[in-house]
């Protein structure tokens, strides 16, 4: 399964793009995705935190990722 990933803020600088595609095993969870991302882009581990949003909602970890989901890397926010 190939999932499209949106990337913001400093994560965009680390990944080198504001959107990318990532190959995931069937039944991959948010935690699986985080592990794959940290392996591929080790600098993500140096951030204060990073969250994954699944379809515009913060994900906790156990959620399964489906083919048409909108998935995003959310580095530490700093709006306002």
């Amino acid at each position, binding site marked *: 399964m190939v999932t499209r990933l949106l990337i*913001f*803020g400093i994560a965009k600088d680390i990944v080198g793009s504001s959107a990318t595609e990532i190959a995931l095993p069937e039944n991959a969870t948010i935690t699986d995705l985080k592990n794959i991302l940290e392996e591929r882009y080790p600098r993500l581990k140096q951030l204060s935190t990073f969250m994954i949003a699944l379809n*515009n909602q913060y994900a906790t970890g156990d959620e399964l990722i489906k083919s048409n989901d909108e998935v995003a890397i959310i580095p530490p*926010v700093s*709006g*306002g």
Partner: protein
Amino acid sequence: MIEIKLSSSPLDLQACMSFVASPAAGGIDIFVGTVRNRTKGKEVHRLEFEAYETMAISEMQKIADEAIDKFQVLKVAVHHRTGLLNIGEVPVIIAVSAIHRAAAFDACRFIIDTLKQTVPIWKKEIFADGEVWVNAHP
């Protein structure tokens, strides 16, 4: 009643005030964020704000809904800007009307404090000698 806006154009203070005004209101509190010329002793040239737009809007809506549940307030406007901002420009305006002023102050403060923690918007500080994404590193 809630008005959420994310915009790359300058924000309009009077529009925020007009949205929350109500014959039932005794007071309105308005928080206006402004771009400061220094951070941690270092001169800032400008800021750049980037947003995950659809989610930023839904998270701002959630916070405004929560403020209306939590406090005795009438109307809430949350306007946030994106793009490059110079010193003195306004990245955010939050306006809250209430029958009694204490609720307006409490809700306005709750909204800006929560917005800074949860809304997917990112600020890059641009200095003479480089750029830093705020809060990114411990």
